[in-house]
């Protein structure tokens, strides 16, 4: 057993403490942009954590995960447009529709393997994308402004940026904890076993399809909730949220951070979005640097950031 106080855990703990203190710092420096940036990071981290549950642990490389972000967002946007702003209605509706969508997508996609799985999840996400484009009543291609954030009565006020940040942060921690429990449970071992050797799993008596489907649905649901948060954060939802390149971003975050661990995607989201921020401060053409950097990560830094931290432990 490794000691708890190893370099990797210290780095992770430092990052979590830092994230918890961001609103304090932003307030002190009167820098609302900083708070907004980190709110976005945290929400996308949550989506990446959910993707990593199926991709990193379950070996199901979904190239359509942004569909759930869009769905969660549209649930908030459409209900708000129709005059229903109660969070206790919006959020459950978003969660349930995301779960249902994941059941449908998963039920079909999980019959295929490998690159066909990547492509069929992409195809489903594209369908959802075009549904968004076709929603003329709700802005079509241009998207939909959300005038009021989800209302939670006297419980908390999401329009307060600091409150909203901590709600997002709390939900991120909850998702990370949930995924961590899951992957170490009997269920999680089945999922990881199916990634490692599905044929053997069936030979020792596991009907793996249903376990993988349930896992797929859990991931979709968490991501739908992230979509709820993102729509509340930007006060806006549009099909662009579901474009396939957004799904690509989520994959980048998970891989960049390291897929082997629960917290990897959080590191990945932080790294990617802060890098974007830093590079765009450096030059207008920052993607010229970011693109090759991603390629370099693929080629030279397997295991992602978490992998590098873990190798610190061995040093």
């Amino acid at each position, binding site marked *: 057993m490794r000691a708890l106080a190893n370099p990797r855990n210290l780095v992770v703990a430092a990052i979590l403490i830092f994230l918890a203190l961001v609103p304090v710092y932003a307030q002190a420096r009167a820098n609302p942009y900083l708070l907004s940036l980190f709110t976005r990071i945290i929400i996308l981290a949550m989506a990446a954590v959910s993707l990593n549950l199926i991709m990193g642990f379950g070996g199901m490389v979904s190239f359509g995960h942004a569909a759930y972000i869009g769905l969660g967002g549209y649930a908030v946007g459409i209900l708000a447009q129709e005059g229903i702003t109660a969070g206790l209605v919006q959020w459950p509706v978003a969660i349930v529709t995301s779960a249902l969508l994941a059941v449908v997508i998963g039920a079909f996609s999980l019959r295929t393997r490998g690159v066909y799985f990547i492509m069929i999840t992409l195809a489903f996400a594209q369908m959802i994308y075009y549904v968004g484009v076709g929603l003329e009543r709700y802005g079509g291609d241009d998207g939909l402004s959300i005038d009021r954030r989800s209302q939670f009565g006297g419980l908390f006020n999401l329009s307060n940026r600091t409150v909203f940040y901590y709600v997002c942060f709390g939900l991120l921690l909850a998702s990370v904890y949930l995924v961590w*429990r*899951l992957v*170490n*449970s*009997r*269920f*999680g*071992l*089945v999922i*990881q*076993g199916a990634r*490692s*050797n599905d*044929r*053997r*799993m*069936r*030979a*020792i*008596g*596991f*009907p*793996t399809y249903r*376990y993988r489907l*349930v896992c797929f649905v859990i991931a979709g649901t968490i991501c739908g909730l992230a979509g709820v948060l993102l729509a509340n954060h930007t006060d806006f939802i549009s099909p662009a949220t579901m474009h396939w390149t957004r799904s690509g971003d989520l994959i980048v975050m998970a891989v960049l951070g390291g897929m082997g661990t629960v917290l990897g995607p959080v590191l990945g989201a932080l790294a990617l979005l802060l890098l974007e921020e830093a590079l765009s401060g450096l030059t207008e053409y920052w993607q010229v640097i970011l693109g090759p950097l991603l390629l370099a990560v693929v080629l030279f830094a397997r295991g992602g950031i978490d992998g590098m931290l873990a190798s610190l432990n061995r040093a």
Partner: protein
Amino acid sequence: MPEPLLEIDGLTKRFGGVVASDGIRLAVAPGELHAIIGPNGAGKTTLIGQLTGELAPDAGRIRFGGTDITRLPAHRRSLMGLARSFQITSLFLDFTALDNVALAVQAHAGHSFRFWRNARRERALREPAHKALARVGLVERAHCIVASMSHGEHRQLEIAMGLATAPRMLLLDEPMAGMGPEESQRMVALLRELKGELTILLVEHDMEAVFALADRITVLVYGRVIASDTPAVVRLNAEVRQAYLGEQEAVIRHG
């Protein structure tokens, strides 16, 4: 003869024009160690595939413990107590040896829609897994990552995973494949121990081992059963000798 545990009747499988299983008929009694031999291309792998549920037969029936399992999916057969090992080692390479065996235990310990408790701390899973590892002599290697273990150890682990589920029948697909003489010796000793406790269907190339261990032997040639009897009788069977003319004839005669 008591009611057979495994009964195969008229099992037929074609791949295009090739008949890989041609009306195979055989029965394995409880407690028996039944070996299946045959030259390359005799259809042993196809037979195993149909027994485990990875291939669907074109005709015929398979009964296990009195139940027709011909159309059951692989995982259901395993849950009924038909455990198997793979010819080409098929393990969870990124898991530890103990994790591998514990997964096999877990498969037979009710459904796995348990999302919260740490499964690696469940004694109900770990203890039987430990026992199975001890049985095959791998207990000191319990916490090794499987990818780092030797080929011989992989073969032992294959058996342990079969044993861990307390099966009624163990289907061993060439457990000695690729083993050195010393490792083979150990495997034969292990199988001898298991014999009597468990019904075993053994598909194996190593004639010496087969004739030393088996209660009954079925010989498969071009998908057909040409003999199914005790080793002594099979050894004298003219058709079998014909099929095995060449290097292995000597083994049959003297082994």
